């Protein structure tokens, strides 16, 4: 390894580029949506880049003292939530914050920290085929958005997804299949029937053979 390193040199591009290991000029906002019957849960992970952290901090640290208080955290989580919109079948949903967590300011400043916001919304009963729309307009100028849905449990199925190029607008097509009619399977379900049939055919057969055996 030493010998290899002795000869190692960096290409010109790397040589003039500082060794960034952190997010730089974007505010990454990754949302994961999960669904179950009558309920939607969202997890929003926000990672401000170093170069844009000033803009983000200005919105969090409203008293400008250079620190983030509990009250400022709460207010910021609420602010983020107001920049989101959720609707199901054209009707607006009303998400509420379930919890939030801020990494230490030092980490956030370096582009390494994350702000996590969990939110919940009630999903009212609707038709078997449904459309869910999620929008994120928080800090649109500096943000890179990601949005995905976790594979839901049966009977909910995701039948389609579409997004705008920057993923600030996300549409989810859902189908909620009716519970299946219990049908006998080829496994253990038919076993009692096979057993009964075998007995019905087998018993007279054995009985007749015994009788004919006695006669001979």
């Amino acid at each position, binding site marked *: 390894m030493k010998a290899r390193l002795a000869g190692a040199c960096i290409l010109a591009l790397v040589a003039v580029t500082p*060794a960034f290991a952190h997010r730089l000029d974007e505010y990454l906002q990754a949302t994961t949506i999960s669904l179950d019957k009558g309920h939607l849960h969202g997890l929003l992970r926000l990672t401000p880049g170093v170069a844009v952290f000033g803009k983000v901090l200005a919105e969090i640290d409203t008293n400008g003292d250079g620190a983030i208080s509990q009250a400022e955290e709460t207010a910021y989580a609420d602010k983020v939530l107001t920049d989101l919109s959720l609707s199901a079948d054209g009707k607006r949903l009303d998400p509420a914050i379930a919890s939030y967590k801020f990494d230490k300011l030092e980490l956030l400043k370096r582009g390494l920290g994350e702000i996590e916001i969990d939110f919940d919304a009630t999903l009212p009963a609707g038709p078997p085929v449904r459309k869910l729309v999620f929008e994120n307009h928080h800090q649109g100028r500096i943000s890179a958005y990601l949005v995905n849905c976790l594979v839901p449990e049966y009977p909910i199925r995701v039948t389609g997804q579409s997004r705008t190029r920057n993923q600030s607008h996300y549409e989810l097509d859902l189908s909620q299949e009716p519970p299946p009619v219990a049908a006998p399977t080829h496994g253990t379900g038919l076993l009692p029937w096979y057993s009964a049939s075998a007995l019905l055919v087998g018993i007279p057969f054995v009985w007749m053979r015994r009788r004919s055996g006695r006669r001979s």
Partner: protein
Amino acid sequence: MKDVSMKSACGVAALGLACTLAAVALSGYAPQPQPGTARIVSAADAFLATLTPDQRKRELFAFDDNEQRARWSNLPTGFVPRAGLSMGQLNVTQRSAAMALMAATLSPKGLEKVKEIVEGDEVLKQGSGGRDQNMFGKDLFYISILGTPSAKTPWMLQFGGHHLALNITIAGEQGILTPSLTGAQPALYTENGKTIRPLGAESDKGMALLNSFDETQRKQAILSFRVADLVLGPGQDGKTIVPEGLKASSMNAKQKAMLLDLISEWVGIVHEGAANARMKEIKAGLDETWFAWSGSTTVALGKNIAAYYRIQGPKLVIEYAPQRLGGDLSMHVHTIYRDPTNDYGRGVTGK
């Protein structure tokens, strides 16, 4: 009489030995290497034997220590501290034993990839002009063992640092490499006049697969939106997102083979026996596996792609995500390899 019987006994024994030797010669017998797990356990025991009692305490964790399992990241160890022993904390003998353990656990190709990632980080350290002595470099890669190395009882080997996190659960003859992260910055450098791209094959094979698609396939495979980072990176254990892109059932036989070859770049990091078993599993679910691409659909000769792609199957998630940190997307890459049904071997060990 006694003499005669002794002679005949010796004759029979000699004949038997001759027959055995002849059979051995005909069968082309050679001493067989230890099977995968026995070889790894021997190497792990040999490594542990080189450590002081205090080092052993820092090196060993309980197999079901979930905090230690999840203590990995794409970030440098200065930002996200790892536990275990760093290469810089080991003397020459201990370091050599640690690398022997890695060599026993990984394939030759996997070991080479790991070395190139580690060396890339050393290059990054040199390139930072000494500013980041405690942030980057080959001394800041950690090794840790969860559980007791055994050929029968499950245990885990972790090796990682900046841009590398290998979590290898050994359960009998199984070697489960999920979740694991590979990355590279710089993703292209030269040493001794030779160009090194630690994740070059992942880039080239991904591009080749995309280029093999016809127009209809490309429309399905290429996403209309930008994917700025890994979706299922560190901290996202056990999650399965709704798959997107082109399903392998819509690929022809050659394209399916190309997809499997691409997947093998991650699967094949671990030793051959474990990799073969895993490839068999992935092959069984291949028709239900999806390939999605986002970003530039061209690449400059000899460079890495500046595009994101994802491979997702019933027991598989792979993401390749160029990073927009420091300018050139192709020079900084993160990748993740998961089995949401078996991350940290939970599907097999139940722990």
